[in-house]
């Protein structure tokens, strides 16, 4: 959905971690939007239950204080209330489970991808391989992605998040990401895209992404992998299909 009046009210999307951030980053994929909506659904019930439980607690402490109520109650049974406080939470859980399972099963909806990109984790950097264009076993489009050290950052760049070579992908295209590792466990995570996939040596974990808007999305390695675990970020740059094709052509030449 494109907002026709965005030139009147330009929006800056939150696609990277902000200092003191409390909420999610802005969603760029339907999956992430689904996660945010599920979070809102659950949070609604959470607040109701929280207020109810706190109110019961405060009431009990107030009315049964030893000065106000020196002789304690000796109630030990209450069949009706026990049935109510078993059934009622089950109903709440059912309301929570319905959108949760809907989202979970929607992840398994399969669409043939247009592009396959491999992300291979090494200690302290990621390697990306775009092998759809290989005419032989020689890797024609592969590059390493190292974090830009703090001393080399330019004004306006994000500390611990910028990399030298970004993962360029086309927006509004079904992508298949294959995540693996060449040494220890890593995890390829980009919050804006709703992706977190472990990189396990010997496994090729597959995840599908469909990015709905162009932009630059930042993420970080999410599985402890040695001393530089905090210094191997991921930057995904979603561009138009034409720009992607020119980028690939340039890289292949």
């Amino acid at each position, binding site marked *: 959905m494109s907002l026709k009046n965005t030139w009147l009210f330009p929006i800056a999307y939150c696609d990277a971690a902000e200092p003191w951030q409390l909420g999610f980053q802005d969603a760029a994929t339907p999956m992430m939007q689904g996660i945010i909506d599920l979070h809102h659904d659950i949070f609604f019930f959470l607040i109701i239950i929280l207020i109810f439980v706190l109110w019961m607690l405060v009431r009990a402490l107030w009315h049964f204080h030893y000065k106000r109520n020196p002789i304690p109650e000796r109630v030990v049974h209450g069949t009706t209330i026990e049935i109510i406080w078993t059934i009622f939470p089950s109903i709440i859980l059912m309301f929570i489970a319905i959108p949760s399972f809907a989202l979970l099963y929607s992840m398994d909806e399969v669409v043939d991808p247009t592009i396959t990109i491999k992300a291979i984790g090494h200690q302290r950097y990621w390697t990306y*391989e775009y092998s759809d264009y290989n005419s032989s076993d020689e890797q024609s489009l592969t590059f390493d992605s190292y974090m830009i050290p703090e001393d080399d950052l330019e004004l306006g760049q994000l500390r611990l998040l910028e990399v030298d070579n970004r993962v360029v992908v086309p927006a509004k295209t079904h992508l298949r990401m294959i995540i693996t590792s060449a040494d220890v466990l890593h995890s390829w995570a980009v919050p804006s895209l709703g992706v977190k996939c472990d990189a396990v040596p010997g496994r090729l974990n597959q995840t599908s992404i469909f990015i709905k808007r162009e932009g630059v999305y930042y993420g970080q390695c999410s599985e402890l992998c040695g001393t530089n675990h905090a210094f191997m970020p991921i930057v995904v740059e979603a561009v138009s299909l034409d720009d992607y094709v020119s980028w690939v052509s340039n890289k292949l030449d």
Partner: protein
Amino acid sequence: MKTSKRMADDLKTAPMDWRFPATNQAKHCYYSYNEFHKCAAEKGEHDKDCRKYARYYRSLCPGHWIEKWNEERANGTFPGRY
């Protein structure tokens, strides 16, 4: 510009294979690699189907896996049949 248009139409990759529905596609990669070599042994490397299988395994398998298997095949220690 012409190259650009041709490439945009050419964007394709290994399709989803229902024989390998799980998250771990390692078997899919190994199977595709073996399928190419089986096809190459039967029909020759430059056959249309074999080229298709070659594209599939190159898309799915990491470069270092392919190199390792190619070395094993050169040494005669590759565990697959072809």
